[in-house]
């Protein structure tokens, strides 16, 4: 994360487009998600539609935490 004021970020802002994070920041975000939510982010899940905004992150984290369908 690059020291931006969190108050300027809205739910749908793209982290990359807004310059909030860079490619190393994405790596930090993934490690944070794995540690904080006890999930494992697979290579194919490292896409903007899962990780590039708060609005994208919330359903992604929920889907990872949900018990696998039987």
């Amino acid at each position, binding site marked *: 994360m690059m020291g931006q004021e969190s108050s300027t970020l809205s739910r749908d802002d793209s982290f990359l487009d807004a310059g909030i994070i860079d490619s190393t920041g*994405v*790596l930090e975000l993934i490690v944070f998600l794995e540690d904080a939510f006890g999930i494992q982010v697979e290579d194919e899940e490292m896409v*903007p539609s899962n990780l590039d905004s708060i609005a994208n992150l919330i359903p992604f984290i929920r889907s990872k935490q949900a018990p696998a369908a039987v």
Partner: protein
Amino acid sequence: MPGLSPESLKIDCVEATGRITAFIRAAVIERFHKRGVVVGVSGGVDSSVCTALCARALGADRVLALFTPEGESGSETLRLSRLAAASQDVEGVLEDITPILEAAGCYRRRDEAIRAAIPEYGAGWRCKIVLPSVIDDDRYRIFSLVAMSPDGRSVKKRLPPDSYLGVVAASNFKQRTRKMVEYYHADRLNYAVAGTPNRLEYDQGFFVKGGDGLADVKPIAHLYKTQVYALADYLGIPDEIRSRPPTTDTYSLPQGQDEFFFSLPYDKMDLCLYALDHQYPAEETATALGLGPEQIERVYRDIRSKRKAARYLHAAPLLLEE
């Protein structure tokens, strides 16, 4: 606007050589009042072309080709570097930088950073950093480390941020040590230092700040790699150097530039950069390159994103009062 094709990058080599050699003379002699130029020669086409251009601009006796291999350099690096210098009648000096790198802890620090992710990594192992392809899907380009054990077992692991940054920081000792040695010889001879990036590398930030990014004059930073190859042919760079695929020669496993940094092989990357800068729509670029428009859009995004990251690399030190 003319249609996009490899012809878009065609240059008049006679005119280009005249323009660049005049620029080198003006920069080195008139602007900086230096007697000649040091060029770090890697055996690749960019540094070979720079050596040839400097020799034409200033005279071969005012160019020093510096060979700075280290313990993990490719087996052909030194021979091809000597070949490049000899083809232009330029004197070469060998400086094996391995002892400096060992003393600075380059290899030790890098291996410690790797062991945070691959605990068994140790003596006899080799490694490189790789990125997923840009054109295949929307995945972020997250670096992975590929390590090979002495018995040939290959391990690929995504590195945690601290480990990744540690590997890059330690590896950057190589480029920064080379530059330190280049400036030693430049100071000793009252020469300037020539940097050898091509346009792709310069534009996209494929260099180490204070390392290969540091120089007094960068004679081919405006040329696409395709154009550098055209000049190499015109300037008589040996075929063996011209036909060698571009490599980083930084990691101990062989590593192509397009698996580490660029999204496509250089000829396609050149055309994408040209197309983006000349506002060609993705559909037209896709047709010219035989790729899909969505793939070109991904490459365009990757180029813009690297440009953004390169701003820091290009930035001069900030002063409170300009």
